[in-house]
């Protein structure tokens, strides 16, 4: 790969839209980390696509001067699948919240992981529905009182990281929106990774979870040990099972072909030397052959 001709500053990726987020929202940290990661990777804005579903965090594509698509609830990865398979030359990033990605769009995560879709998926996890004003999410801790669980949340929470590892993602990380430096590096690694990279960013909601969530998360977060081996799936799973701490860092990283590689291989098999059939040649197949 030749060296990029232009260098970018994080600010180059800003659009003139002001984020709709509340002051103090964790998503500002994620957006800033993304700007920085994109600048240090010198991503060409016109060859980059950012897609999202619906939610507070799904507004993010509007704030980045690449091609962007804020679609419908839960379908960021569905659209990203089309973009990346149809145009494997593009850098594709999907973003969204925990309601969007773990509830209504949960099915697409499993299949994107399984396909090893070469997309970076940043899940901004605030353990609550923010845009609809404070209802229980699949990541809300059991017992928490929310607008939709007056007596306390009766359901256990899902761990997005464990789900991604178990369904075949080849890069799985957990970050914190309040740790700009590490989050930037993590997003950068995720974009560089060939295959499905899943980054679960704990991104507190000051409006519906108050200051306590931020304090609680800060107390629970713990960086991976320096000698941690991310290629060991079993130890990655072990860390996801720990409940009193939330481990941050790249928990799992593996190689393997992407859906794009496999589709390209199929095309090579089918084309037998790059010959594209004309419509008439395709129709010949329907002539009685005897």
């Amino acid at each position: 790969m030749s060296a990029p001709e232009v260098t970018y500053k994080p600010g180059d990726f800003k659009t003139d839209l002001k984020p709709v987020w509340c002051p103090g929202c964790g998503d500002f940290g994620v957006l800033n980390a993304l700007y920085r990661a994109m600048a240090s990777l010198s991503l060409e804005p016109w060859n980059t696509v950012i897609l999202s579903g619906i939610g507070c965090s799904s507004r993010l594509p509007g704030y980045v001067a690449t091609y962007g698509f804020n679609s419908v609830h839960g379908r960021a990865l569905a659209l990203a699948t089309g973009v990346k398979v149809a145009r494997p030359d593009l850098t594709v990033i999907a973003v969204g919240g925990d309601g969007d990605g773990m509830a209504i769009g949960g099915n697409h995560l499993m299949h994107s992981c399984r396909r090893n879709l070469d997309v970076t998926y940043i899940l901004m996890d605030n353990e609550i529905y923010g845009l609809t004003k404070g209802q229980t999410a699949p990541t809300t801790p059991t017992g928490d009182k929310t607008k939709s669980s007056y007596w306390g949340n009766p359901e256990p929470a899902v761990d997005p990281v464990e789900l991604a590892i178990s369904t075949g993602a080849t890069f799985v990380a957990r970050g914190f929106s309040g740790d700009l430096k590490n989050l930037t590096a993590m997003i950068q690694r995720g974009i560089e990774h060939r295959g499905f990279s899943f980054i679960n960013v704990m991104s507190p909601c000051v409006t519906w979870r108050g200051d306590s969530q931020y304090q609680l998360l800060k107390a629970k977060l713990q960086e991976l040990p320096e000698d941690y081996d991310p290629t060991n799936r079993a130890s990655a799973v072990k860390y996801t099972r720990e409940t009193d701490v939330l481990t941050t860092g790249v928990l799992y990283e593996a190689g393997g072909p992407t859906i794009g590689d496999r589709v390209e291989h199929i095309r090579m098999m089918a084309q037998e030397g790059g010959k594209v059939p004309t419509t008439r040649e395709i129709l010949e197949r329907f002539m009685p052959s005897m």
Partner: protein
Amino acid sequence: MPRSDLSIAMVGSGGDGVVTMGDMIAQAGARDGLNVIKVEAYGPQIRGGESSTTVRVAANDIYAQADHVDILVVFNWKDFARFKGEITVAPDAIILSEAKDETEVDGADLGAGPNATWIKVPFIDLAKESAGTTLAKNIVTLGLLSELFNLPQKPLKRAIEKKFSKKKAEVLEANIKGFTAGIDFAKTLGEDVGDRRLEYTPGEPRLLMSGNEAAAVGAIHAGCRFFAGYPITPSSEVLHFLSEWLPKAGGSVVQTEDELAAIGAVIGGSFAGVKSMTATSGPGLALMTEMLGLAAMAEVPAVIFDVQRGGPSTGLPTKSEQSDLWQALYGSHGDAPRVVLAPADVEDCFHSTVDAFNIAEEYQIPVIVLSDQNIAQRRETLSMLTLDHEVKERLAPTAEQLEDYKRYEITPNGVSPMTWPGIKGGQYQTNGLEHDEYGRPTSMHLVHEKMNEKRYRKLRPIRDDYHFIRQYGPDDADLGILCWGSSKGPVKEAVLKANARGVKVAAFVPQVLYPFPKHEFEEFLRRIKEFIVIELSFSAQFYKYLRTFLELPEGHTHIFKRSGGKNLTVAEVEEQIAAILPRAATKREVLV
């Protein structure tokens, strides 16, 4: 007198090879330049169970399967009972059945009259004696049918040779012996069936394909290079064909986890600048309707090929109906413009799909093609399709427009220049939210009003540029029939037959249902005395749709509608013509 048009139905269990027989007769007919329409029907079993295949072969033009079959082959009457009401024979039909099956059959149940010919044939014994296996029963039958009814014998023999060419030499030899045994047995039959022999002059070979296959080829022709779909009867053949051929054409196929992902991926692929399509049936279209609105709002070209089946819910997955119309016209919340096309036969499935891409790309709008099980899965002969079907591309911005790029610029025809990733300086951030000309989200009433107006404005030029209409019959008809989709076949056949008798009946078949060709249709209404809508929808979706924007002639408008599950027949159309015509004695005073 020999016939120029013959319909043959074959019924048996899995393993009897009736589907292979139907294939071979259809192939042989196509090889000899005959017109062929072949349909298959199965029981609910995944494998085995009863199956039937009906082939119509004709020297003259045909537009639908025949109402009644002239020749019926039954290997097992128990299997036949499962198709009661779906396969009826002509009163003078020839019924060939297995000699060992001693079931008492009441001819009236099948539609047979007193002059029907009943022939017991020892299919099993003939196969055993000649080929050494009962498996060759269908091949014996092919020999017998070809000899009795003058079906293309040489092409049939070649089809058998081709089918068994990869097997051991003994297998091929045994089957040829079976075929010959069938021919020889036919010669020994005392019954005179000479008046049922097909008379034709062999011509140039013709294409033999299904509507789903034609649609898939049409997609490739139009430049589709990305397909995402989820398997569903009766549309899966589109996915099957494209999984083989789209990669050959340099494209890619994803079998998604559900229909939500399929339409999402199509919108993504198209947003990325690649012509994209999905195919589905009613239940899948229901899941796609939210994102149909997204494609309308974000103005992303998208082609959705919907093969209708009986509904609601799981309904009748293997049978045809015209009841996805309202869903296609109105599905999705908000004011979501879309285009709805309706192919009326197998060849149309090719052209409608090309048109769907052209409209989608030119006007940046979702296009639904409403096919149905009848034309989707039947195989019929076609002449080499018109391949000069023009292919259109989406409007890209000029360098000057990119200086201050407005993705949703308000223009006279509503179409704004559209970039795609890779175009430097063409970046924009779109959304399903209402947005201004730059694509920036807004919830301002005034912008919403303007943008709705812009998006709907695109429908006007579509209505003016894409009015494919078929009309049959005289200009000043006593009765005018309006129908759509696969109903065209039996309607056309009935109308042409009536015209040949001097009866003044006309038909109007639009292939764009939305935006509806209102002016042309009103002109049609002015020329006729009585009017009838014919459709296979219990709640009369088409008729009621017309009523939302058209004044239909009061006191002179009739309707024939029923549930699907059985294709429309020529006889049903003829009954309507006969019943309504006497009312057309006086010309209406007040027209539309």
